[in-house]
């Protein structure tokens, strides 16, 4: 398929995991891909792997000023965006009793405030027909222990897909959500657990997935591309859950 030939696509948090898989999938279908991330080394590596005319820009999705810088940088290169995947996020888990303000601020600062103002800053770069996909999470729909802040932040993000869709429809811009369940990504290494705890947690989660396995970043990317392509033009403000059935049990 070549659904993104001649299109420009921005993937925030595009240097690893689901973001990187989406960037590769977009590029494979002809898109010029712009990825952002905080880790310069990972960005450089990802850009090299993406090849072609891919662009990598260092950016902290939790800082509103940097969201505006990103839009300005793209504008200065006369880049218009056909699709945006708001994927950069923070996933910090802690028992309710232990959650502190810093964890709250980081989670909501990146997943809600950062995403919100990033989209706002990008608006002048979007033409009619552009599509925005937000990376949600099934945590917004289930009561997984220790996920309270993360889950609430993703619920807020999912809500934005609806209100922003309503406001952006006159511009011909659609906003939808892909909500992954458990996916094998480097994210799991970032949760701050030791190897044994991580393994036990993974096995426990896997047991709750009807398909009996973790999903792959590529499987989430395929849905992102579907929601970004013209073929989904009548899908607006909607959410596609990619979780092997986990949230349905």
């Amino acid at each position: 398929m070549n659904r993104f030939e001649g299109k420009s696509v921005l993937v925030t948090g595009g240097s690893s995991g689901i973001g990187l898989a989406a960037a590769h999938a977009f590029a494979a279908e002809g898109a010029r891909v712009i990825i952002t991330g905080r880790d310069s080394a990972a960005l450089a590596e990802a850009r090299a792997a993406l090849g072609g005319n891919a662009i990598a820009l260092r950016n902290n999705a939790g800082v509103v000023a940097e969201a505006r810088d990103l839009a300005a940088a793209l504008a200065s290169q006369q880049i218009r965006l056909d699709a945006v995947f708001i994927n950069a996020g923070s996933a910090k888990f802690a028992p309710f009793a232990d959650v502190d303000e810093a964890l709250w601020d980081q989670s909501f600062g990146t997943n809600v405030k950062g995403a919100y103002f990033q989209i706002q800053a990008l608006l002048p770069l979007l033409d009619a027909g552009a599509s925005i996909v937000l990376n949600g999470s099934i945590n917004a729909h289930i009561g997984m222990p220790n996920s309270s802040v993360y889950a609430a932040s993703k619920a807020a993000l999912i809500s934005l897909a609806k209100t922003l869709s309503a406001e952006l429809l006159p511009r011909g811009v659609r906003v939808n959500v892909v909500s992954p369940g458990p996916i094998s990504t480097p994210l799991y290494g970032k949760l701050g657990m030791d190897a044994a705890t991580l393994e036990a947690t993974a096995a426990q989660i896997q047991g709750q997935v009807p398909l009996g396995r973790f999903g792959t970043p590529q499987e989430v990317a395929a849905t992102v591309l579907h929601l970004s392509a013209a073929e989904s033009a009548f899908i607006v403000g909607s959410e596609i859950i990619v979780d092997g059935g986990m949230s349905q049990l």
Partner: protein
Amino acid sequence: MNTSLQDKIVLVTGGSAGIGLATARAFIDAGAFVYVTGRRQPELDAAVATLGPRAVGLRADAVSLDDIRKVFSRIAEDHRRLDVLYANAGFYEFGRLGDITEEHLDRSFDTNVRGLVFAVQGALPLMREGGSVILTGSIVATRGAEAFSIYAASKAAVRSLARSWAVELKDRGVRVNVVSPGPIDTPGLGGLAGEPANLAPLKQHLASTVPMARMGRPDEVAHAVLFLASDQASFITGAELTVDGGASQL
């Protein structure tokens, strides 16, 4: 477009017109071989004629368990397997509380729920690892629908069935999902409108309920069905894909 659908064996129930026909055509364009069922032979023949040599029409009433059995016997004879079932055959008519008859309720649930249950069950022996079942739901399943309560309830049942079946079929590697359309411009609206003079006002009203300010096209629903049927959706099961121009979402 979806290379993973090349040479797949697909059954589309209710494929003579509208969403079913558009989806059958999309599957054929993607390289699949498609069986379509329909209740009325002339409409079915006309549909198959437009679909070409990679389509076979099997006359079957979606409420008749006997007809359903015959469909699967035929597919088993021809191919011994089925890769995708799109259970799309459905029945709808208006029925306001106070005027709901037994016939209205029975026909709605017999087609949309009972017939669908036995269609999916009948397909199981033919479906292998990697198979995909897609059910046609409706956005009215999750919202109030004036003079449409029985249809809405029957589609809520369909949504529920997909959840349970997704879990029950996990060991067989068969995924079950729902595509829930909003207002789609199909020939079936003529029947819903009753008098021909009512059709234009009905369409106008339906379009006014959609944030995108138009009805969807059958092929826009077909794209969603093909996505769920393909390998692209390999980690999606028990889920619902809403194709409604934002009607139930905003």
